[in-house]
């Protein structure tokens, strides 16, 4: 038995009279953290770059969506870990003796170190994911604004982007091969808008 034993016992004894303050402080920390979590969603979506993911071609659109979704999950997890390390998880009680408090403190230090390390790692990963997503939105080819049509003529059907007409012929560009089909206007039977070719 050492003088430290009494110091721990005194510290635990005093905690009995600080329960309300501890609970209130913990509640304030969690309230601030939960408020911050709601702003994370907006922050991640604001910094993604282009206004609309719908402007991106597949598969870039899906890659960006997965990256942003993963970044959001990682940031939420990192925030929860950091708050848990800073304020603890509400709901648990221990017997307020010096021995219980010392045991709790020792375990808590280990837990805080582990949580902070994980929170840092997850945050860095999330920021990297957002950066990659922003890079993709800046560099990936965007969808063309051309109108897809199905052109029915006497010799058959052509599907592609309507690129214009010249010298009595309708020009239709294939979205995949980029080759241009030329349909004489005299052979034209009808033109219909198409979702895809």
């Amino acid at each position: 038995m050492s003088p430290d034993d009494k110091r721990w016992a005194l510290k635990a004894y005093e905690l009995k009279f600080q329960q309300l303050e501890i609970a209130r402080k913990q509640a304030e920390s969690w309230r601030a953290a939960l408020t911050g979590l709601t702003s994370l969603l907006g922050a991640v979506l604001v910094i993604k770059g282009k206004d609309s993911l719908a402007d991106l071609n597949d598969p870039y659109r899906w890659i960006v969506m997965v990256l942003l979704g993963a970044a959001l999950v990682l940031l939420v997890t990192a925030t929860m870990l950091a708050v848990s390390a800073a304020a603890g998880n509400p709901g648990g009680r221990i017997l307020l003796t010096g021995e219980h408090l010392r045991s709790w403190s020792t375990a808590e230090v280990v837990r805080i170190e582990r949580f902070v390390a994980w929170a840092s790692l997850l945050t860095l990963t999330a920021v990297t994911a957002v950066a990659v997503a922003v890079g993709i939105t800046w560099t990936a080819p965007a969808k063309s604004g051309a109108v897809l049509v199905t052109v029915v003529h006497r010799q058959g059907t052509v599907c592609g982007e309507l690129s214009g007409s010249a010298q009595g012929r309708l020009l239709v560009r294939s979205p995949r091969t980029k080759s241009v089909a030329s349909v004489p206007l005299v052979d034209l039977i009808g033109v219909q808008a198409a979702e895809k070719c």
Partner: protein
Amino acid sequence: MSESPSIDHHRDIGYAEARATADQPFTVTADPDGDGMVVQGVCPACRTFTEFAIGRGIVGTKGRRRASAPAPAEITVFCMCGHVHAERPPEATDRGCGRFWKVRLP
């Protein structure tokens, strides 16, 4: 307190933060006013009845891992006789002679 300390038995010793050894049995009972416990007995130093109430409360976390850790078999209690002892430092928060000792939990 369920038992009044007798001033006749009280030894007017100076305050000192020193370890002591319980030479009489201490009782450990559930706290009727809470979910903690109450340790009662005679201080081995100033020979006065002392009652040490232990609460149960939050300290800032849930403590899942501590649930699997073995609970301490002995706890440290200190004199809370309520008498004013000489040389007691003004910053002292305990209300006794300053001695502390171990009590085995049931």
